[in-house]
């Protein structure tokens, strides 16, 4: 079984982002960039399947700038076998390459590489769209197991447990399938130094979007990007009695 893992280069989750003063987007210059956390879980899941003897090859792919090679190297250090960068200078967070375009590019790659499984994050923490996996699944006519917290693969049958609003739901999917990861699927490993060194020698191909025949023209134009309204907080109470009094008599939210 061959697994394709699409990943995204995003602002590191520890960075407090700032909106640009011209309201065109979010400041990305000199900001730490990382693999989207959900995608890191996807890489880990694929690599574990390989380690368990259920997968033969793990291919990491991203669509992004030249520098996104850094994130592909991270994937290779975790244990992916090779990587592909679809190089574009268009923004990948807002007003540039959108989930539908990404899904089309990934579809072209799937047709080229013929994986049996595509595992990717349920959403990227920059645009928070939560669409790409579902869209890719639609375009390929494959089954989808979104928000996965558990995966069991037995031959052609994939049992996936999904984190849904009311609890956990289990589906049985027919391969080939798309899996999108939720937080509890696994805890990604830290790549060890020898693996990081080894990753530098692994194959990383760079291709142009045109080779995939995909048009990245956005369908959504950004009117403006603003800071959210600030909440006035910081009020303190000194005791439980004062808290109860305030909630009853000032805020009037308890009886």
């Amino acid at each position, binding site marked *: 079984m061959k697994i394709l893992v699409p990943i995204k280069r995003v602002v590191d989750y520890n960075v407090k982002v700032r909106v640009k003063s011209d309201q065109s987007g979010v400041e990305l210059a000199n900001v730490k960039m990382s693999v989207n956390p959900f995608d890191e879980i996807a890489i880990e899941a694929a690599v574990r399947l390989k380690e368990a003897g259920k997968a033969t090859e793990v291919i990491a792919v991203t669509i992004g700038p030249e520098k996104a090679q850094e994130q592909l190297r991270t994937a290779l250090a975790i244990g992916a076998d090779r990587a592909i960068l679809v190089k574009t200078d268009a923004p990948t967070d807002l007003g540039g390459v959108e989930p539908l375009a990404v899904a089309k590019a990934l579809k072209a790659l799937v047709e080229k590489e013929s994986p049996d499984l595509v595992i990717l994050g349920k959403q990227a923490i920059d645009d928070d769209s939560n669409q790409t996996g579902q869209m890719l699944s639609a375009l390929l006519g494959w*089954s989808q197991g979104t928000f996965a917290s558990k995966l069991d693969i037995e031959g052609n049958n994939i049992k996936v447990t999904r*984190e849904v609003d009311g609890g956990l739901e289990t589906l049985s*999917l027919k391969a080939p399938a798309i899996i999108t990861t939720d937080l509890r699927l696994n805890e990604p490993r830290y790549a060890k130094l020898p693996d990081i060194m080894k990753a530098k020698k692994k194959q990383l191909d760079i291709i142009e979007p045109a080779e995939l025949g995909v048009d990245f023209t956005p*369908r959504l134009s950004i009117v403006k990007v603003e800071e959210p309204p600030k909440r006035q907080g910081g009020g303190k109470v000194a005791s439980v009695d004062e808290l109860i009094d305030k909630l009853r008599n000032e*805020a009037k*939210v308890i009886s």
Partner: protein
Amino acid sequence: MAILVLAEHDNKELAKATLNTLGAAKQLGGDIHVLVAGANCGSVADAAAKCEGVSKVLKADSVELAHGLAENVAPVIVELAGNYSHILAPATTYGKNILPRAAALLDMQQISEISAVVDADTFARPVYAGNAIATVKSSDKIKFITVRGTTFDPVSATGGSASVEEVSSKGDSGLSTYVGTEATESDRPELTAADIVISGGRGVGSAENFAIIEELADKLGAAVGASRAAVDAGYVPNDYQVGQTGKVVAPDLYMAIGISGAIQHLAGMKDSKVIVAINKDEDAPIFQVADYGLVADLFEAVPELNSKLGK
């Protein structure tokens, strides 16, 4: 202009998030139709027909639609889509799973989790875990939209008298089958619909210790929530998680207990009307958004609250 709203339901009852989604549809203006795709879902269709502002309910009632499998529901939406300028679904795990699949089949770029309607083509949505709000304008012929429930008032579930029309299922894709659900059993109100939410974080320390949080919730008729840290540590089930990657809530009262206030968590609760924080670390970021912060050991403060709130 006509709008189609995908109803979320369990074949018996209409999920409340559908009413908030209808609230967003109402702001757009135009005829509002509701699609109920399920099995033996007649009572849901009847409930949808009574909702304020709905002029027609389309009922696709067939066994392969029983569990809301995206592979089977999306083609039903695709078949109907040509009649609509906007297709809306709640931004719940149900809507998020199905709607992008339908949008892609029609070559439309979905607009996810809108928090405001500016005009028929323009919508605001939180990005970067709610640290920025992007206003986007769509050039697509059909706008596929998921709706963040907490930012739109629900329409009334009564007063309407829409007609119910049968539409056909497109059959079973054969791609996936439903195996089962492990529902979290609880007599408490549903997290996203509760007036009061009591959430615990890593500071609570263990699954056993969560009992004091639950006791407080029961005294106040509240739902129980949790931070990602508490869920990851296994104190409570996954569906308790409040945050950008969990559930977004906006109750009248939100109490964050033993929660430090990571950006990710704040994104899921900062629109609550009143926020209370109880934490022994006075520098915890949660205090910056709290209306009433109590710097205290939660193992002293919460039992004291429980005894003084009596009942």
